[in-house]
């Protein structure tokens, strides 16, 4: 199953984004970062591809630091 992830340099940034997504009513799931993407222990966010543009806009507006958008099959 294809899943889309957003990775963060630290969990504070992750929490900041999830709070914004909650406010905007955009669905997401907090998930441990898959080992395939990074060996760090931090959190990542699984999102729906259709919301990607909206999420990118929020990240820009709110100045949230991310490590990038990733897709895993």
């Amino acid at each position, binding site marked *: 199953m294809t899943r889309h992830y957003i990775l963060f340099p630290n*969990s504070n940034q992750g929490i900041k984004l*999830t709070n914004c997504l909650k406010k905007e009513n955009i669905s997401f799931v*907090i998930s441990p970062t898959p080992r395939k993407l990074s060996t760090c222990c*931090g*959190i990542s966010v699984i999102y729906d591809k259709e919301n990607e543009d909206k999420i990118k806009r929020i990240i820009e507006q709110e100045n949230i630091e991310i490590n990038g958008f990733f897709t895993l099959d």
Partner: protein
Amino acid sequence: MNYFNFVVAEIHGARILELENHKKNGGKVVGTFCVFVPDEIILATNAISVGLCSGSQFWIEDGEKVLPRNICPLVKAFTGAKVSQTCPYFQSCDMIVGETTCDAKKKAWEIMNDYMPVHVMELPQMKRDKNIEQWKDEIKLFIDKMEELTGNKVTVENLKKSIDLMKRKRRALKHLYDLRKNTPSPISGLDALLVSQVAFSDDPERFIEKTEELCAELEKRVESLKPSGKKRIMVTGTPMALPNWKLHKIVESLDAEIVVEETCTGTRYFENEVSTDGNTVDDLIDNLAIRYMDINCACFTPNEGRVEDILKYADEYNVDGVIYYNLSFCHTYSIEHERVSKVLKEKNIPLLKIETDYSEEDEGQIKTRVEAFLEMI
């Protein structure tokens, strides 16, 4: 569910920091491995109780450096975690509390004692009146030990308070499990297992609040769910310590959902409550002993209560089949399979026994066996 995912994703960050802060303020942290260790006592002395992770293949190799290979992976994992000093939870603990539920654990405490202070509670292996008296004495010794460690006395007030806290925690878990009785269950077995596992190490008040929030969300979901046709499965047997999600992951990748776990990381943790009746610490110890000795673990002989529990859950959760999950080399549970299988056969409830450890090598075989089992149901 996001809260619980966050706790696990940040398992080596957020909670560890809380434990460190607690210690900086003079508090103590106590590690446990078994549902028989009364959390109420630990909480009453203002210490934090953490159920230690022993569900990862990662530590097996280090465990095997000091233990024989042919014992259960849970014991090898927790010993390996301490010996290799790779688990921050173990490193945070001022003391660990062991118990004598099986031979492997009983002897492993001696090795663990070389690395950190260990207090062992002798759990009686029968349920006669004199055994309940023995367990009361063990609880008293444990209170002495905790008072010595923390410098805080156990009083009627603080013990009643902690009994009440644990009661609310058990009720929150029971609420979650009751919701799984719906067809289809509003939560996957894997997610529910994760909540159960988080219960062992999280802050109790926060855990209760977040679990109730989750239950409220699930109650709404129940109204809109339509039957999915998935087979409803009960898992019974040995505990699944964090991060052991192996069986749930395999079963739920097929056309099935796990709706109840009759295990120590399932119903055995939250069933039955401790009464707060009584005016002395001794009265409350009596209540604790009675509740804890009512847990139906395979370490007891005889253990008729467990078979009755399985039948009761099969009915309550409306299960189509039962998977008997057995960690390799866990003899008490492995032997008890015979009794359970006889009774389930009489009742026409299909049963599959899976004996496995934490490695990934047999996942393919297990998947094939579960697939065949589901087709047969």
